[in-house]
């Protein structure tokens, strides 16, 4: 049987601050479904994985993301990414 579509690669997700607390994990490795192309797609899928995720992403416009340690937007592609991070707006300095 030939594989017409690319098998979803495993992706490391890391969470910080209240996103981490709501999800209840500091990090995890996931295999998002085929067709998960962007950060927005990934968030949509994560929200189906339980109450903690729903709570963490209840206001999607607030949560920030980074792809391989670079700031990303909802439309940013995740193809080939090794690590995606989700976190609240930053409060350093």
């Amino acid at each position, binding site marked *: 049987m030939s594989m017409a579509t690319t098998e979803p690669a495993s992706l490391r997700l*890391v969470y*910080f601050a209240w996103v981490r607390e709501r999800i209840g994990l500091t990090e995890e490795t996931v295999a998002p479904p085929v067709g998960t192309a962007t950060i927005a797609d990934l968030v949509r899928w994560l929200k189906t994985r339980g109450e903690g995720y729903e709570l963490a992403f209840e206001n999607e416009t607030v949560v920030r993301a*980074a792809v391989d*340690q670079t700031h990303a937007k909802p439309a940013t592609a995740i193809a080939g990414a090794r690590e995606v*991070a989700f976190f*609240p707006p*930053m*409060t*350093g*300095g």
Partner: protein
Amino acid sequence: MTPLVRIQREDFDVGAEIAALTSGNPNIGAVVSFAGLCRDESGRLAALELEHYPGMAEAEISRVAQEAAERWPLAGLLAIHRFGLIRPGEQIVLVIAASSHRREAFEAADFLMDYLKTRAPFWKREHLADGTLGGWVEAKADDDDAAQRWEQVS
């Protein structure tokens, strides 16, 4: 000139950092340093806990520092950001910019701090004076506005 960026748990010595950045460069005529300290918010706080994203914290501050180095003629640029539990009166962040003349050093330090606040992956959590754990500090719209003003190309 390659900017120096350090992310560390330990405290830093502002005088020693200025000396290290400027020594051996007699072309430097101006040094601007900014140190951010932990406030107790009128007695309300026992400490701030700073969480960070290891790897990205260094990378992102380095990107901002590199932008500053391209924008102003600098002889030296340093940023140090601490993480972990920091008590009122203790130092959290340090930016030092050195240049031939003062304007560049002032502006580069200001720019670096403004962007560091909105782009560096750090999050502050309050520890309250009564011994309980407080909430996460919310990002301020003021900080976004402060960073935004550098977008207006002069």
